[in-house]
Each structure stands twice: as C-alpha cells, then as structure tokens.
C-alpha cells in the first residue's frame, strides 16, 4: 500500500475517454438551471434601478400586489437585518437598501402565476428615486472631485488622504527598486487601461426556490458552489444553514461568475412570502447589467533592463474598479504581475476602488490578465528598444524552483522554463510572418487553490463504484474524477459514475474556483479510493486468514504478498463486493481536507495578429497555447481549457467591453453589442501540454482552468502593436481605437 508516493506510470490517467455528461448534453436531457419545475410554481421578476446612483425615496407596491395572479412582492424589508462584512455586501448587492448603486441594481421583486404576469407586475411597482451624482471610470472615481459612493467603506489599509472611494490598499515586494533602476541600461515606464468584461457564460442565472414558514428550504440553481449559495442564502434570509438544501444544476458555463449569488436569495424571499415555489431566470440583459463582470483597471508599470536582457527592477501600480462594493482583486493583480520573473528588486501596489457599477465577480484568474497586459507590454517595448528576442529575454529572467517569488514565497517545482523552451522550439515561433502581421508572446501566472473538500466513494455489489463530489463540474471534472478513481482502484473508467452531490448528502465543499477541482477533489477522490482499497484488503485478509498488511492491491485485485505470495488466487474487486454485506457490511471510502499543495501554474502564448491599416480591424490567423498541467488527467479537457482561455482572451483583447454612457447606464447590455468572438473570428488554437509534476498531488496534477486567460491580453497586444507599428495602451483594441492610434502616429 505504498500509495503515497507520487505515481508516474499511468494506465487510465492521461487517456481520452468519452465524457460522462456528453450524451445528456447533446440530446437535451441534461437539466440546467432553468429546467426545473415544481407543482404550484410561481415565476419571479426583478425591478431594477435605471439610475447609476440614486437614493430610493419610496417604493409603492400596491398596484402590483392588486394585480391578478400576483402572489408576492418583496423589497429589502423582506430580508434579514443586522448583517455585517461580506454577508452585508452580498445582501446589499442582491437587493438595494437605501440607495441604488448602479444601473441594474435590484430594488424589488414580484412573483406571479406566469412569467408574463410577473413581468407586467414588475412594471406596476413604482419606485421614487432621488438621482445622485455618479462615477463609473476608475481614475475619475479616485479623483478629488469624484462623488463619494459609500463613505466609510475603506478599511485601515488605505493611506491617509486618499478619496473615500479607495477602499483597500495592497503593497508588496522585495529589494531596492531605486537601486535596481539605477543599474539598468534602459528603463521604460508606461500606463495602461483595460475595460470591464463579462465571463459570457451561455447559461443565464436561473433557480427554483422553495422556502416554508418553518425555515426549511430547497434551492435548485446553476452555481459553481452550492455550499457557498447555502451559506449566503441562509444568512441573507435569516435561516439556519443546514435547513436549506441546495442542489447544483448542470451548469452552462461559469468562469468564476457563478461563484456568488444574485437571484437565489430573492427567489427564496419570494417563495417564503408566497408560500409557493418560485422560479427566477435572468435575461441576458440582466446578466450583463447586474451580475459580476471583471474589474476595469488603470495601471502604471516601470521596468529596468540591461542590454543583455536582464531585468534589474520592476515596479507596478494597479488600480482596480470593482463596482460599488469592496473586493476588486487588486492584490491578485499586484501579486501576479511580476511572478514569472526572478527579480531582486520588485515592488507592487494595488488600489481597490469603488464606482457606480455592478459588484465585480471572479473571472478566470481574477486580476491577473490585466497585470500581464501591462507588464508584458513593457517587456515587449524593452525587447524592441534593445533589439532582443522576446522569448530569450523571458527565459533569461524566468522564475524557477527556488526563486523568491515577487509576492513572497519561494517556488517549488514549476514549469515556466519548460513552457518558454517549448515556445522557442515550436514551429509557430519561427514561422515567417506575412505583410501586415505581427507576433506577440506573453507569460502568464496563476496561484491555483486547494480549498475545503469532501469526497465520498461507495462500492456497489457488482464491483462498480459511485463517487460523490461537491464541486460542480464546470470543466469536465466528472471525467477527471472517474479517471483518477479508476487509476487508483485499477478498474475501468466506465465502471465509475461520478455525481455532484447536494449540500445535504456530503460534507462542506469550497466553490469550483481557483482551478482547484481536478487538484483538490481529485486528491480527495484518490484518498477516498485508497480508504476503500484498505477495507477491501482487510476483507481479503480475513477470508484468507492472513495479516492485513500481507495483502496488497494490484490491478483491481487483492493479492497475497510477502510470505503469503502465491498462496491464494487474487480476489477481484467484484468478488469482494459481491458478499460484502456478509463480510462486514457495505464498503465505502471518504476523505475530507483542505489540501494546500495546489502548485502554481505558468503558461506562455504565441499569437499572430493581422491588422488592416485602413480600418484598424484585427484578425488572429494563428494562436498557440503552451501551459504546464502538472499531469493532464484527461488531455482533451486540458486542451479545451487552454483553447477556451485563448478564445475568451481574444474577445477581451479586441472587442469586449462594458460601455457606459454619460448617464451612467450600460449601453451594450445585449450580445449584439457586447461583442464576444463568434466561431469564425477564431483560428484553430494549437495547444502544447507541458507536464512538470506538482509535488502536492499524488498524480502530479496542477489546475489548468485559469492560467490560460492570463497571457492572451498581453500576447495579442504585443502582436497587434508590432503589426500596426504603434503601441496599444488600452483594451479593448477595437478598430476605432487602433485606427485612431495609427492616425495619431502619422
């Protein structure tokens, strides 16, 4: 049972079996958030503020309540009182209190017997507003004359004299940057901005809620974390956590945006008031206006370099606007910014700034892509000025095992050098460019995460296995769990069914975020399987009348070993499970922990851009993603994560943006004008999986879900800037912006 050693030869892990959810999804049998129904179900609709910032003077619900078919109307008065901290912030975002803080902020909700009636009733709810001055831009929100959005929100970290809209501050680094810059042959300092983007998951938020007067409830919702939903809904409604059972539906994309709650507490409040189940489904416009996009940013980066490419010092200031609530991930932006490089002198500063926009939510490696855009653009400028090869410069400065990271700790085994070498040696990097094309590269970094994890694994009499995990499958994790269980148990992949358990049937689980699921739920699945194996070995030992430690597990069988080797025929798993009821009872394994060896992740992207100098339009003819997966459990899914990161990054870099009018209203709250790339905008995205095993996982796994979106903004900006012959400082690099830059450049 020497199963704690890291494994390196695999039978099932690393293969590409069919996905277990494939048939359900292609036949329409899969049940997503909006697919649930219940007897007596009502339909909800939410009234939203049309103003960016307004005091709510009065809400008159009488006309709506008098309408036929209307069963309940709720406002903030129908939620728990006295909350503090993040519970209060989430509650304030889910249903406005005294003040509407952004265009789209929920102020009331109604439940009626049909969706159309609910929509009509919502129009009858009369809200009197006193419009207040607003601000939506990060730099303007920090300026001395900016309207104060929520005075007193700032915590103790903010330096004296800052505007009250600056609510948190971060500073980290090491060495002496001034001395480092003095050693440089060239120092470049430049400023950059990025606009907010949305995760763009295809499935809008949807839920079905039922909450009785006894405080017992059921919630079905599309979410990346149903224990998070349970905890927050219970707090916002003022009920006990365990009395609310939450079931995660099949999920149509999340990318971080479904790691919080929006409509779920509202549906529960409506249900409690109407004493009927209530279904709430967001429209796409509601998703864009009132869920959590990324932060917008304003950044200054300064880097010094010697003529041979050695970076002598680096400094960055990162200002993130995350809506009208604290929490913009500016510390991640700051900490990730220079992580790919081994620097003696580095300093990074972050500001969390509030503005009249929706509360930001996580979006794949939250905060890191923007940092990479600023930092890697300056490195590219240095390479151009000093006539140095961009990959060689990055190789020269790359972080490796033992490097003191820019954000503090020393790196263990990491794969950045391997990724850069793979980039240098990839045919893409040396392929000739056509007229009007430019090539960009960028490194990217993400921490990865462990998080609270519970897994339970039960054996059936026929020798098959059911695995219950608590992390919603947002990227193919059921296939990965089944592969790791089959590897551990030595039985075929097809003999294992993995289910996402509800909150009543498994211990607590952190959200599916931080690229943690394949790592943490995978580790817990392996450990749970090992526990079941130990029990099976014990049953075999009892049957054979030999000591437990004289039985080993090999290829799905209990085998006598040591002095008893060869004394008995191996017992297959199905032989043991067939009579387990009579040999000691049902056999299962479980594992609960907060694993802390997630293993950081690096990637390198190579991209070619073609810019039409007459229209400023960019196309992407070639794209290659190279990333360290530690060990790719299901390589097709890993490649899919790489490609998905690049695809979303292309959108973020070129055309996606939140466009606010002078009135503070979102101008493009539909997919027609919120321009996500369509299939024909994308090239075939090539992938290279690098495998430098993570010492913190039995099979060497690192999360792969987030790092893939870190390099694209920078790599594309570098490619576009080289193709256009003019440096781009602001995202998105939409055609009007590129054409204006070309004209300004003459």
């Amino acid at each position: 049972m020497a199963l704690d050693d890291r494994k390196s030869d695999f039978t099932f892990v690393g293969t590409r079996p069919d996905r277990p959810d494939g048939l359900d999804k292609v036949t329409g049998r899969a049940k997503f958030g909006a697919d649930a129904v219940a007897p007596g179900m009502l339909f909800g609709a939410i009234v939203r503020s049309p103003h960016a910032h307004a005091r709510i003077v009065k809400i008159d619900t009488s006309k709506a309540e008098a309408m036929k078919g209307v069963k309940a109307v709720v406002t903030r008065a129908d939620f728990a009182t006295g909350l503090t901290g993040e519970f209060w912030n989430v509650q304030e975002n889910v249903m406005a209190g005294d003040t509407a803080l952004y265009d789209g902020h929920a102020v009331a909700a109604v439940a009626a017997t049909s969706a159309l009636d609910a929509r009509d009733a919502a129009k009858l709810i009369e809200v009197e507003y006193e419009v207040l001055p607003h601000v939506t831009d990060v730099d303007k929100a920090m300026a001395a004359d900016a309207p104060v959005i929520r005075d007193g929100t700032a915590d103790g970290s903010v330096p004296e004299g800052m505007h009250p809209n600056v609510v948190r501050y971060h500073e980290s680094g090491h060495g002496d940057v001034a001395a480092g810059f003095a050693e440089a042959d060239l120092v470049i300092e430049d400023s950059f901005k990025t606009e907010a983007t949305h995760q763009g998951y295809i499935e809008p938020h949807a839920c079905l809620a039922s909450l009785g007067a006894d405080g017992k409830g059921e919630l079905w919702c599309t979410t990346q974390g149903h224990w998070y939903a349970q905890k927050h809904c219970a707090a916002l409604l003022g009920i006990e956590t365990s009395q609310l059972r939450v079931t995660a539906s099949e999920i149509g994309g999340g990318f971080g945006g479904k790691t919080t709650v929006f409509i779920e507490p509202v549906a529960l409040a409506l249900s409690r008031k109407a004493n009927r189940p209530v279904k709430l489904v967001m429209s796409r416009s509601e998703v864009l206006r009132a869920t959590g996009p990324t932060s917008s940013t304003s950044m200054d980066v300064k880097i010094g370099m010697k003529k041979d490419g050695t970076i002598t010092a680096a400094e960055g200031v990162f200002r993130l606007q995350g809506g009208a609530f604290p929490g913009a991930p500016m510390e991640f932006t700051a900490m990730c910014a220079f992580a790919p490089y081994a620097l003696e002198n580095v300093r990074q500063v972050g500001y969390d700034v509030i503005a009249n926009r929706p509360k930001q939510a996580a979006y794949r490696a939250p905060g890191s892509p923007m940092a990479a855009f600023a930092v890697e653009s300056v490195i590219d400028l240095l390479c151009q000025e000093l006539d140095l090869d961009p990959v060689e410069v990055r190789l020269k400065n790359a972080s490796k095992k033992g490097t003191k990271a820019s954000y503090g700790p020393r790196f263990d085994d990491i794969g950045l050098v391997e990724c850069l070498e793979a980039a240098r040696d990839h045919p893409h990097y040396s392929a000739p460019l056509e007229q009007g094309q430019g090539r960009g590269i960028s490194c990217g970094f993400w921490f990865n995460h462990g998080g609270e994890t519970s897994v339970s694994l039960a054996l059936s009499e026929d020798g098959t296995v059911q695995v219950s995990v608590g992390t919603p499958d947002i990227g193919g994790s059921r296939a990965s769990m089944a592969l790791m269980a089959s590897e551990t148990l030595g039985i075929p992949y097809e003999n294992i069914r993995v289910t996402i358990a509800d909150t009543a049937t498994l211990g607590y689980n952190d959200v599916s975020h931080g690229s943690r699921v394949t790592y943490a739920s995978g580790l817990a699945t392996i450990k749970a399987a090992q526990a079941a194996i130990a029990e099976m070995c014990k049953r075999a030992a009892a049957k054979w009348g030999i000591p437990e430690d004289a039985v080993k597990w090999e290829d799905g069988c209990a085998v006598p070993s040591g002095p008893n080797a060869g004394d008995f025929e191996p017992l297959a798993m199905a032989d043991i499970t067939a009579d387990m009821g009579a040999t000691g009872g049902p056999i299962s394994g479980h594992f609960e922990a907060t694993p802390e060896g997630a293993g950081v992740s690096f990637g390198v992207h190579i991209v070619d851009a073609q810019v039409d100098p007459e229209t400023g339009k960019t196309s992407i003819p070639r794209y290659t993603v190279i990333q360290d997966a530690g060990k790719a459990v299901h390589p097709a899914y890993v490649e899919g994560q790489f490609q998905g990161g690049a695809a979303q990054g292309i959108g973020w870099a070129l055309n996606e943006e939140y466009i606010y009018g002078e009135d503070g209203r979102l101008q493009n709250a539909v997919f027609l004008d919120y321009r996500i790339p369509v299939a024909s905008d994308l090239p075939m995205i090539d992938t290279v999986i690098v495998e430098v095993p993570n010492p913190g996982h039995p099979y060497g796994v690192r999360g792969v879900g987030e790092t893939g979106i870190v390099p694209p903004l920078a790599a594309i900006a570098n490619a576009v800037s080289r193709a256009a012959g003019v440096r781009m400082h602001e995202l998105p690099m939409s055609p009007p912006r590129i054409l204006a830059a070309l004209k300004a450049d003459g």
Partner: protein
Amino acid sequence: MNYHSPASFAEASALAENADGVTRFLAGGTDVLVQLRADIVTPDTLIDIKKIDGVSDITQNDDGSWTLGVAVTGAEMTEHASLSRDWPGVVEAMDLVGSTQVQGRATLTGNLCNGSPAADSVPAMVAAGVTVTVTGADGSREVAVGDIPTGPGRTSLAKGELVSAVNIPARGDNAGDAYLRFIPRTEMDIAVVGVAVSLRLDGDTVTEARVSLGAVAPTVLLVQECADAIIGSTLDDAALDALAAAASAACNPITDKRGTVEFRTDVAGVLAKRAAKIAYARAKGETVKGDHA
C-alpha cells in the same frame, strides 16, 4: 394583442387603417418578434402577411426586372442563381443579415421597414435603384427604397400603408454591384458603416454609377458626388481617391457604442473604394466573392 392573417394586401391595409394603438406587420418576424420578447415593442395589433398569395415568389419579368414578394427570405434569395448573378450586391447584402437561422426568415421588406440606419440590404437596394410597391386605402403606388426610411425606427409609410412588393430593375449589360459593411467581428453584428456601389461600363470606362452609404447618417444616403467621382473614369487611383473623399464628406454620423464619428467617416471612404473595385470587376464579367470588410 390582436393577431390577424389577412388574405390580401387590401385587407391587410384595412386592418391596419382601423387598428388602434401600435400596429406591426409580421413577415419573417426577425425584428418584430425579437422586440416583442425583449419587451421593446408590444404591438396591439399584429398583422401576419405571410399568408397572402404570392408573397414568397421571386419572379423575373419579361423586361428582365425582378419582382420579389414581401416574405421572400434571405436564404431564398441567396439560393436563387439568376437573381444572384444579376444583383450579387443586393443578394449578398441581404445575406449578411443575421445568422443562418435568421436567414431562413428574414426579408428585404422587413429589413427596410424596421427603419434601422444600419440595415445592410437598404444601401444595396438604393444603389441598385430598387423600388417598393406600397399598398394603402387608396390603392398602390411605387416608392424608391431611399424614400421609405425617415429616421431611426421611422418610415414614410402612413397609417394603413404597407409594402406589398419589391421591384428590382433589369440589370442590363456590362454592369455590376457590390455591398460591403464594416463590423468588428466576422459575423452576427450590425454594420458600423455600409457602402453599396452599382455601376455600368462602356469598355473600361464607368458610364453610370450609384453609390449609397449606410449607418453614417440618420437614414440611408445616395451620394451623387460619389457617383460623379467615378463616372467617366476607369476607376484609376485618382478616381478611387475622389470617391473615398466624397463618401467621407457625405457622412453625417454619430459616436455611439458601435463606432465614432471619425471612424465611420474614414471607413466609409475605405469601403467605397473596395466596393467600387468589386462592382467594377463584376461589370467586367469577373466572378468576385463579396465579403464584409
């Protein structure tokens, strides 16, 4: 909401004439139904004109001109070989509207009567000299396409009037047309600028031309200065530059979420050149695949 499916245009006109509140005619429904579902326009009266005889017919008349029923879809136009051969610019402009699914429903008439300044088929129809037959209480009249839109979302059609047919002129010899639009993506987008050119040659020399711009003013523009810039030329660089300058000069755009005044003005000139080159090549008998810029 009242739904009607009249058997004739006269009946449709009478229904609209006598209706109260908001009336919408329903052909493909790719604007009307989307606006209904998005809670933008909820008609009191919906008059479905798809069940009127002949509305799905594409007919070439004896003089070579074409008559298209008001429910003819973009997909039906694209699949019609001889219409596509005669008027590739008009057909391709319509084909740019929406997705493959939308193409199975969307119509030229709907694209025109929706009143969007960015409608793709409208500049192409204006350049081609297309007219529509308008039916009202007092019978029918023929109106140039360019006279239908009067501003964003508005048309010159009076209460009780509706378009009952689309009339495309005979193409004639040595002629070609083209439409190009600018969108930041490759599909599924709204024109930031659209330019259509229709021209005729005598040998290598342009003898007739019509140039129309979309999405750069409250309504579609037919720009005589653009036509003058290339008539009499062999579409040499000087003529193309003059065309571009005239197109840019004619623009009266706004800055909005889709583009800036400066961008639209510049790109109108760029697209005018590119569209003129395609139309010219087609007039010379070359087969040129159109594409948006």
